[in-house]
């Protein structure tokens, strides 16, 4: 199996590294300034000024990020969304019907399990994880996707399910 840097994950990873480095820098500065002798009143005056703005920034960020994320939810909604692909997970196999999907046409994965919880993780032909949905016994999770790139899409189990969890693989093919 070949894995490559998927674009959205890389962007998120870089954002994380930037934030982590900035946070680490704050702690390094805090460490260097710790040995100075600054009156507590002065620290509090500046600190409270910064804290108010920091709070406002984080609250605004919460509203913007969470608000924007609500427009990109992966949850299927509404009636039938293109062709239905039935997916059943079991220890330690996937049953995917049909196994050939047409490119550029919407499909709805109807995912369930015949025994324990599994995770239906879809990797594109280049090895990017493009998303996942859980397979839960007694429930049907529905995922709407449209594939634009033909090729073999690999499925890995993304919920620990027992002895051969790491071997629970399958694939389907996207064709023009």
């Amino acid at each position: 199996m070949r894995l490559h840097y998927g674009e959205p994950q890389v962007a998120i990873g870089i954002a994380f590294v930037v934030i982590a480095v900035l946070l680490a820098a704050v702690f390094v500065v805090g460490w260097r300034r710790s040995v100075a002798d600054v009156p507590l009143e002065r620290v509090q005056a500046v600190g409270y000024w910064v804290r108010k703005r920091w709070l406002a920034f984080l609250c605004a960020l919460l509203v913007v990020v969470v608000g924007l994320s609500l427009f990109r939810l992966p949850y299927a909604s509404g009636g039938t969304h293109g062709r239905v692909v039935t997916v059943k997970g079991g220890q330690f196999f996937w049953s995917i019907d049909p196994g050939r999907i047409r490119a550029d046409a919407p499909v709805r994965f109807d995912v369930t399990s015949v025994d324990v919880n599994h995770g239906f993780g879809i990797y594109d032909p280049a090895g990017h994880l493009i998303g996942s949905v859980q397979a839960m016994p007694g429930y049907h999770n529905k995922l709407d996707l449209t594939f634009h790139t033909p090729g073999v899409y690999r499925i890995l189990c993304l919920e620990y399910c027992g002895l051969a969890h790491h071997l629970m693989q399958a694939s389907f093919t996207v064709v023009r």
Partner: protein
Amino acid sequence: MEAAATAVVHPRYVELDVAEPRVTERHAAWLFAGTGVALFAVMGLAGLAMRLTQAEVLGLSPAWFYRVMTLHGAGMLAGALLAMMGALWYVVRQTVPLSMGRLLTSYVLIVVGAVAVVAATLVGGFAAGWTFLWPLPFHAAGQWSTWATGTFLVGLLLVGAGFFLFCLDVLMKTTETYGGLLRTLGVTYLRGRDDSPPPPQVLAATVVAIEGLEACAAGVMILVALISRMLDPKLTIDALWAKNFTYFFGHSVFNLIIYLAIGAVYVLVPRYAGRPWRTTKPIVVAWLFTLLFVMAAYSHHLYMDFVQPGGLQLMSTFASFGAAIPVGVVTAFTGLMLVWGSRFRWTLASSLVYLGFAGWVIGGTGAVLDSIIPFNFLFHNTLWVVAHFHTYLLLCVIFWELAFVAYLLEEAAGATASRAQTRLALGGMGIGGYGLVGMWYLSGVLGIPRRYAAHPTGTAGYSLAASIFVIVFALGFLVLLWAFAGLARTARARRYEHVEVTDTWSGGRWPVRRRLDEPGAATRPLPRVTEPLGVVFTGPTQLGLAVAAAVVSLAAFFPQVVEASETSTGYHHLDHAGQFLFGALVGAIVASLPRVAARLDRRTADLGIAAVIAVPVVMMLVMLPSLYGPVEDRPALHFLYHVGIAALGLIIGLGAGALGKVTGRIALVLGVSMAVMYAAGVGGG
């Protein structure tokens, strides 16, 4: 002595007028911290074995890999929980008379639970993961037997019961010491009606206790449901229900370990900064939001279960992000402000505390990113998840656990480790720790799944690099233990003085070692509080409403209601919950009557604690289909069975009544909630 003390604390610290810990508190702290560090070391080796296997260096079979994985998670939970329970108890007991007996009972329950987990995994082969997600424990694929499942579940049940007991005692004593829940949570202070709020460690303890009780109630319920399923295969469990409560328990308890730790950090930082960490209005607001957010955030574990109600997903998104705000804006920010320009006393302990803050906020950032649903779609159950929770567990909680041990040693030794030891230890652990989690973050970006005995072809290099970082961490940890040993030797030497003794008969003289009193050995008496404080239903209005509710819940016994409830097992269990509610209300009403309440004391409180822990377990266990199925066709027996359920309710009502107004009410609500929630997810028969 004075000069030695100022080597490990800030010169201004003595001006803060902080009470010295008592000897019993030190001993308890050592017991808990020692067990926690020992478990961390052993479970860390288990973690290294897993990484080396993924790196294709070590050849653990998948069966053993998943056993070790299950043990690693459960063992780390028990170890970190124990260590931070001891640390919080130690700092809170300076002002609150927490019970040593109850603490030790918690310890025994958790340690026996941990031993059961070890037996279930290493001997019995149990490998369903520490999250024991239904129905995996019953689909062993030939790897473990029923006894192993039962031993594991009972082991975790004991861990949950131990933490539940700890939370009950903390909540009882904090609210009794500070005069009610609102005052203890600082709400009265926030409203300007109180100018002496509790110290922040008491706020932390109270919030943790409330959340811990809720989490453990959920945990006990799901664990008893699985034990019942083991005893009776006819019993059915709804998978979505089980997943919700499993993560409500697991997510919350792991989060609470951090909040337990912060209670100790509130006391440690002023020692080195020479500035007090006082309760302010932002701190009160932060803890109130934490109380709200930590419980509401668990559903992010179910983002990829699309059948989960959308409202819960939305609530979880806001709560998961929101939970970071009190940390970033108040706790970590205030910690940084206290350190800034303070002529901070850098010791081994204070350095670990400071590094722990960094681990918390960096790991928290990784967690917040993962809590955004479209991002979670790309990261769910990849190694990104492992990365972020190890950042704040390994590089924050464990650092604070070790900081607490270092503090105890520094305090006893009156000295800190050498600069070389400190640099080597922290350098190794810092580089090793961040290198390890860095490899996981990178692997998460690549989409490599978590919990794989063998990683996808071509990706073993990341595990190899991570294993090297683990070894670097372990070397740093060994240096830390070396430093600890040095401090322990110094502390031991300080506890003895060399004096020359003269034999009165022979006139001979020889030197002997004489043990000195430990610092603080002149034990201060504990503050006295009434136990229990208040009754569940106060005044005629509340008693009248409770009687009215009890009369209404009598409907659960009406033949028409019983008959109608038999259309489904769930409804029938709900009817049982109604009968249980009736008994619980009657019990609480009786315990609230002035004549009865006047007889309640510490001994009845102990019995009350036993009742509120044991009765819900018994109540759920007697709802086995094989137990009540045979009596359903025999009206007299069926009625007696329902009376028995109500009798159990009566016991929990009386028990809750013996715990005082705040804790009793919470225990009563949790007991009845467990009966109702159980009905929502368990069926069969």
